[in-house]
């Protein structure tokens, strides 16, 4: 059972990821990414992380991807144009990626002592998670909330229309209204 579930959802993940690369319209890529994230959520559940599975759906698929979709629609992004590629990206980037994948795969395959995952393995309860999160790691937690606050402020400041348009100098392309 575990195996079948794993194969199905891992396949969905990969399919979604590859689709993200192959689509030319950003909205299609966004939807593929949502597929990836929900599949990952199931995989988390298979590995016994129930809270993370829920958080993945709520935060990632439900909030972040929605934000992406909003922005795509706001900016009315169209299909990608065929602009000049970057020779450097292709000539240096691809070998680099291949090298990274090869090294990590080799390490993983030669690792000793990796266990197995079974359906019968216990699930880490949310209670356990929070016990550690709110006691031992309280400070990072609070700092993270400050971080999010800063992010909100930053996002608001960056994205709003500036009244009078005094600081949009230099570019003659005008503002996208």
């Amino acid at each position: 059972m575990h195996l079948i579930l794993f194969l199905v959802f891992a396949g969905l993940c990969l399919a979604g990821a590859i689709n993200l690369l192959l689509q030319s319209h950003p909205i299609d890529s966004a939807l593929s990414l949502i597929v990836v994230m929900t599949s990952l959520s199931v995989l988390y559940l298979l590995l016994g992380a129930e809270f993370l599975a829920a958080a993945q759906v709520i935060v990632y698929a439900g909030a972040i991807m929605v934000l992406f979709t909003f922005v795509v629609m706001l900016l009315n992004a169209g299909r990608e144009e065929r602009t000049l590629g970057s020779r450097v990206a292709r000539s240096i980037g691809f070998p680099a990626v291949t090298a990274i994948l090869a090294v990590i795969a080799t390490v993983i395959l030669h690792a000793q002592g990796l266990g197995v995952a079974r359906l019968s393995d216990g699930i880490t309860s949310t209670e356990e998670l929070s016990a550690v999160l709110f006691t031992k790691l309280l400070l990072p937690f609070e700092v993270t909330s400050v971080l999010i606050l800063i992010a909100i402020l930053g996002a608001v400041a960056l994205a709003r229309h500036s009244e009078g348009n005094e600081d949009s100098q230099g570019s003659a392309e005008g503002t996208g209204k």
Partner: protein
Amino acid sequence: MNPDLHLWLIPLLPFAGFLLNGILGPGLPKWLITTIALLAPLASFCVVLNASLGVFGFLPASNSLPYVETCPLLWINAGILRIDFSFVLDQLSLVMLLVVTGVGFLIHVYSVGYMSDDEGYARYFSYLNLFLFFMTVLVLAGNALVMFVGWEGVGLASYLLIGFWFQKKSAADAGKKAFIVNRIGDFGFLIGMFLLVANFGTLTFSEIGARLDANPAWQGGVLTIIALCLMLGAAGKSAQLPLYIWLPDAMEGPTPVSALIHAATMVTAGVYMVARTHVLFDHSPVALGVVATVGAATAIFAATIALVQNDIKRVLAYSTISQLGYMFLGCGVTAYSAAIFHLMTHAFFKALLFLAAGSVIHSIGGEQDLRKMGGLRKKLPVTFAVTTVGVLAIAGIFPFAGFFSKDAILYAAFLQQPNGKILWFVGLLTALLTAFYMFRLWYMTFLGEARSPQGHAHECPWSMRGPLLILAALSVCGGWVGMLRFGSFLAPSVGARITEAGSYIPFSLFPVPWEVILSIVAVLVALEGWLIADKYYRRKPERPAQLAAALPAGYKLLANKYYVDEFYGAVVVKPLLAVSKFFLEWVVDIGILGGAAWLLGGVATFTGAILQRWQSGNLRSYAAWLAAGAAAVLLFLLVPWATVLASLPAIHLGMAGH
């Protein structure tokens, strides 16, 4: 044993005057500058007087010489070489100091009047005090290195004072010429010092003297070389052949400067140095011969040039070169005390002549050409009187000062074996020429009728008249101390005169008939010179022009100073400039330095241009490089390179085997 003489005060007081007037000078009121400037040499002179009174026995506690003062701080302490700051007062330096500080002070007083209208008043006196500082250091030096400090320093002061009116190109050029020609001589001095260190291990005069006295058989060889090197230095400083060319040009400076530096004191530093290191010369007959020959040759050479010069200061300059030749002649026949005697009397009458010339120039508004003077006797009576005294003294007429000293040198030359008589004859001829041109100057300046309008020529103020009168008095009676007493006074420091028989011949005026005869001959020769000058410049003034027309080539040769400057210019200066221009300007400056700068700049620009393409702003290429970097790090960390590299040959061999 002695009361403390505080020798260190003698240089220090003028140095303090230099600092005060140099730094604060422009802001101080004129009377204050004058006071500081005059107080320094006067105080120095008083210290010297104090020392000399003790020596001459006028004080209850008499000092014994030599008196050495050493600074407790060692200057150089390197291996065998130990050099300290030491000042030595012995008979020789005492005489020199009296001359330097005494005449120096008188010339300071004269300058107050002469330079009163000049805007560089404070600067002038600070330089003059600086000169006095260095000169006293030179005289008091106990070892060659301290003397060299003074040596260079007086060269510097001379440069500053010759080029005092530096806005005038000729003055600035003359200053440079003096300094550069001196440097050539200083090179000789330096080589001499190096050889001294190599052979004696010390530069202290007393130690060198002791070492040589202990080895009377050590003659010639390396000692000759050292002596000749030192003579080169002396030739540069004292304007002997072939390095005399700077002295006539040095007349661009103010006249008191010419009097002090280029007549009385600095140019005599060479003679002083030879006298100081006389033990070296005594052990080297070759060097002595060279010194005597150079001295005699310079004497007559300069005298011939002075015959036809028309600038009053130039006549006196060549006269100085000629008289310095006499002093070196004296040194060359080991009559060092006679040379110093002549140094002293020459200081008196030459300074007097220069200052009187300054008075003449000052009174007729800056005119220096003899052909435009004349008839100044009535308008400048005091100057006329003192100039007469000076001219009689330099001509060597009894009983003025020049007679005694010049006669002593000529007598010593006469006695010298084997070629002394030739030197004596040359000296006699020079005396004839000296009398001639000095009286020529006297006639053309003061007697006869005025050859050009002289306006309101007036006698000089008392600040200028006082020193003139004092120097005139010294020119009259300066020789009366007599060579006998002078020689025996100086004997402990410069040695008695050595003849090949090794016995001491006392100088005295009467018992030895040869000396009397020679003195009478010298006086007659001087009078003959006067008569010739009288004939040419008073009774028949058209004769000089006729003579010049009859011998045009000869006249031109003399008037153009034997074209020596032009010769040096073509042979030395031009090639040097050409080589410099080629080598230093093209090869070094443009080629090496410019090339290096260009290279550096080029490398930076080039690498910058290459690296600039990396910063393309393209997001994807940045990402690619990031990925590449990450891959490199991962590869580096996770791959066991040691085993991989070790197994490479095995793989290669394995593949080759298939």
